[in-house]
């Protein structure tokens, strides 16, 4: 995973959060679980909410009303487009790399 441009040191966590929220809203703990399942590495609370704060500022995600003191977040249309663009870029990059590997 390379990350989301423009998010600095939070680019990778931000990308993983967007991927995690792509199939529906999740609260912090569920995001941690999901990202751990995706990458094998569970992000710490500081890392997670540092990225959440930046994603909210960019309007890539938004908070929903709290449920049992837990606040779920959902991806916005802007965030969905950003994720789509970044994943397409990564797919193109991966395709090029794999093609070059296959020809050598």
């Amino acid at each position, binding site marked *: 995973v390379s990350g989301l441009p*423009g998010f600095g040191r939070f680019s990778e966590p931000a990308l993983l959060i967007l991927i995690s929220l792509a199939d529906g809203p999740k609260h912090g703990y569920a995001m941690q679980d999901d990202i751990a399942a995706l990458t094998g590495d569970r992000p710490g609370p*500081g*890392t997670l909410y540092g990225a959440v704060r930046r994603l909210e500022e960019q309007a890539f995600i938004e908070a929903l009303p709290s449920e049992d003191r837990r606040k779920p977040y959902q991806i916005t249309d802007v965030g969905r487009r950003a994720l789509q663009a970044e994943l397409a870029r990564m797919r193109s990059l991966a395709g090029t790399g794999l093609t070059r590997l296959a020809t050598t």
Partner: protein
Amino acid sequence: MRALLWLYPPAFRERYGEEISQLLASSRKPVRDVLDVVWHALLERMELTMRGIPRFFGFAAALLGFAVAAAVVADTVAVRVSSMWGGDSPPFVIAVHVVIFAAAIAVAFVSARAGQALARRQGYPVWTIAVLMFAVQVIATLLVINSRLLRPGFTIYGEAAKPTLLYFGAWLVLTVIVVAVVRRLSGRRAIVAAVLGGLIVLQVTAVLDIYFAGFSVVAESPWALAYWRSVAGIDLSLGGNSFATMSHRDWLTTMYTCAVLGYAIALARPAMKTMPATAVVS
């Protein structure tokens, strides 16, 4: 655990504090997660502080600090080398200039990067760059003077306040002119103008340095080699030892001329056109 949240800025703590607290309470790796929270709380604090500082002044402060540190470290190492080999021996002369030249390259590189970062946002007036670098030079020189005056046997600038100020003033005016020319050009022309302009500035200021210090430029002939002889710290017995005496001051000027021209080149139009976009998604 909740006490850790006080490390965060109030707004962040109010917005996400409870959620972070819940995650910490149910953490499977509490030590790692506590360290993660502490580290990111400090990052949030730092970012909040930096937001309050106008970007240009942030860059200026960072560059100024780096340049001063480079000058002081270079000078300190040079004096250390001097005490090891003695002031006039060839190993001393070579080692001192290698150290100071390395510092000059480092300052120029960091300046160029800072210039690129500034160019990404907007072009700053020539005078802001020149005044910034002038401040860098004066502060670094004062530090060098002080550090040398503290050591017995080093009184290079002790009695030369007026010539030093005249010398730096001439450097400032000439540098502003060269930067203004470079910024009007683009591509290779800008680089060529920066290199040639920089050499002219250094040569002219080296001659003025000798003149302001009360030496006879004619006696120090050939004047065309004034800069090269002064930075080499080698006097060819063509009249006194003024070139060697000025050598450290001229090295400082070299360092800051490189730095200013690094800015100028980075701020030239082609650099602005080729900067990568900061946001991929609109």
